[in-house]
């Protein structure tokens, strides 16, 4: 089992957002988590990555059987958890390629692998940049500084391709992307797809899922998963709208009581 989330409750600034979330992701699976704004999608992504402001109040998260919540963000990353940020951060003065090389070598060191030297790394980076159709000039710029919205998202997928994580969490990577960029991002993720990698796609809309076909779809509503199903669930949700999630939630509450 890659990831197991059991009865996860979390809050931000004293406001409870996740209210008992359960999710199991096996190696090789792609899971889509859909929900409207405020349902807890981004909170889930940030809790899994270990962002400081997000406080877990109960429940547990196991990553390959280990307690993920006990790890610092950098240890999670080195263990193979990758978050593609909804809003990638601009870091003036830190070179994009230097940054990524430091990140990759930190992970390799942790796994007892030899660190890559500059030439080896450059070869790998060039290959992965082609995958996301990124111009090589982006290598020598500061991390995300002055990148357009689409360029930032592609840079996230490029980083993911280089770091080759076991579990990738895409937090609304589709937001603000035109169809071309969407296709490139989805293709980038698809090439990583195999029996060892798992992906959690967090999204508001169905359209990314046309290119990145999930094995499972979950509907998140008010901090809980109210319905799970196959890829057809995304289409049904698109058709019925998020008011359906309200009904499902109410029905669930009635059934539980």
């Amino acid at each position, binding site marked *: 089992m890659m990831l197991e989330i059991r009865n996860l409750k979390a809050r931000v600034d004293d406001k409870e957002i996740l209210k008992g979330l359960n999710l199991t992701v096996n190696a090789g699976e792609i899971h889509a988590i859909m929900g409207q704004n405020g349902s807890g999608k981004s909170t889930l992504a940030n809790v899994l*990555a*270990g*962002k*400081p402001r997000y406080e877990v109040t109960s429940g547990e998260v196991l990553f390959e059987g280990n307690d993920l919540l006990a790890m*610092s*963000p*950098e240890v*999670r*990353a*080195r263990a193979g958890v990758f*978050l593609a*940020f909804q809003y*990638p*951060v*601009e*870091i*003036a*003065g*830190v070179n994009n390629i230097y*940054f*990524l090389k*430091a*990140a*990759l070598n*930190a*992970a390799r060191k*942790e796994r007892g692998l030899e660190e890559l030297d500059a030439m080896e790394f450059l070869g790998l980076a060039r290959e992965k940049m082609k995958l996301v159709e990124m111009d090589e000039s982006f290598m020598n710029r*500061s*991390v995300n500084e002055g990148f357009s919205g689409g360029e930032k998202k592609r840079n996230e997928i490029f*980083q993911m391709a280089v*770091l080759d994580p076991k579990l990738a969490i895409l937090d609304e990577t589709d937001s603000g992307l035109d169809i071309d960029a969407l296709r490139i991002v989805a293709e980038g993720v698809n090439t990583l797809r195999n029996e060892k990698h798992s992906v959690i796609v967090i999204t508001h809309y169905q359209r990314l899922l046309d290119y990145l076909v999930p094995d499972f779809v979950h509907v998140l509503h008010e901090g809980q998963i109210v319905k799970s199903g196959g890829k057809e669930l995304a289409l049904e949700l698109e058709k019925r709208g998020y008011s359906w999630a309200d009904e499902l939630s109410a029905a669930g509450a009635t059934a539980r009581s």
Partner: protein
Amino acid sequence: MSQMVEETSSELGTIAELAGQLRGGAPWLDTLREKAFDRFAAHGFPTSAEETWKYTNLSGLAKIALKADIDRHLGVEHGVEHGVEQVRLRELVLGAEKTAVELVFVDGNLEKELSWRGVLPGMARVMPLAEAIEADARGLREALSEEISDPLVDLNTALFQDGVYIHIPAGIVIESPIHLVFLSSGRGMSNPRVVIRADGGSQVSVVETFAGPRDSAYFTNAVTTILAGHGTVIEHYRLQREGSEAYHISNLRIRQSRSSSVTSHVVSLGARLSRQQIEAALQGEGSSVTLNGLFILSGRQHADHNTIIDHQSPHSESSEFYKGILDGQSRGIFDGKIIVRKDAQKTSSRQVNRNLLLSPTAIVDSKPQLEIHADDVKCNHGSTIGQIDEDALFYMQARGIASEEARNLLMYAFASEIVERMKIEPVRNQLQSDLLHKLGPNGRGGKS
């Protein structure tokens, strides 16, 4: 009260004695020194009651600095045997391959065996000041005689023993930098004096490095004057890496003629208390000045940066960019004044000061000031004080970079913006390794 009077008079007594020992050279210099001493005696060390000295208190200075001085001036002790090794001279010098001239001074006196002088093109001269005075080098007398109302400049004039006179004749370009290294053995006071005179169309870069041993209380009081002829291009670097208990005060006076371009880079890394004063007078039409500065402070360090840019004629340009990183209980000051005189129409001026506070007990005072008397000018200025960007920190951690390393990278990036503006590669390299050291796990919160 009576105690203070006593202390003050004993300081003056010491200074008078030191000044007395220096007399008996050129009569014009004796007169100059006497006048300077009298002005200093009348004024004393500046106090925080004076507006431009509001943030910096020199009361501890006189006591520590002057005690050991008499002996040294009498030649009883000599610097090379006293802790100069501690400042890692080898890491400070740039070497013959990378410089046109490199002069090393210890406690204000030239150390010939540590210095080297290459052959300069044309009639360009880099002379020890004492030698230049003896030879009555052309233009030197006027340069030294300029009246400057500043007690510390007066103190320097009354007491300087040696220094450097650089004269670049018209049209001469000196490709490699001239490096002046002022070391202290860790005792008493030194007053290095530098005059850089560049005639029309010439180009030169001068680097001044100040250093001394750790944990010794000593005082450096340096004065440099740049006389930039028309169309000259001059770069000046002042790298302050004094010992952790040192006092460092330096003055840079820049006088610019028509279409001259002067760039000053100031770096403050060391000293317990330091103050770097710059006054740039844009006297000629179309002249431009750039002032860049970087201070990185920790522990209880105090560094004051006081600059005045005086636009006196039309079409002049100035650009000023200072950055500070402050940790521990350190205090940094940026006090930058820009004056645009009535005749200085079409002036363009830009001033920015950015500061990064790493600890809640560090203090920064940022005081940009504009004084504009002309109506057709373009001036803007801004200052910011911030902390490490937590979102950037998390982003880096989320990619596997340890939080300490991420923090160092962010600080390094912040400081690099100033270092990258420096044209001299060996100086950049030296500073980059300094930054890695000072901002690294062993540097911060520790000794400078």
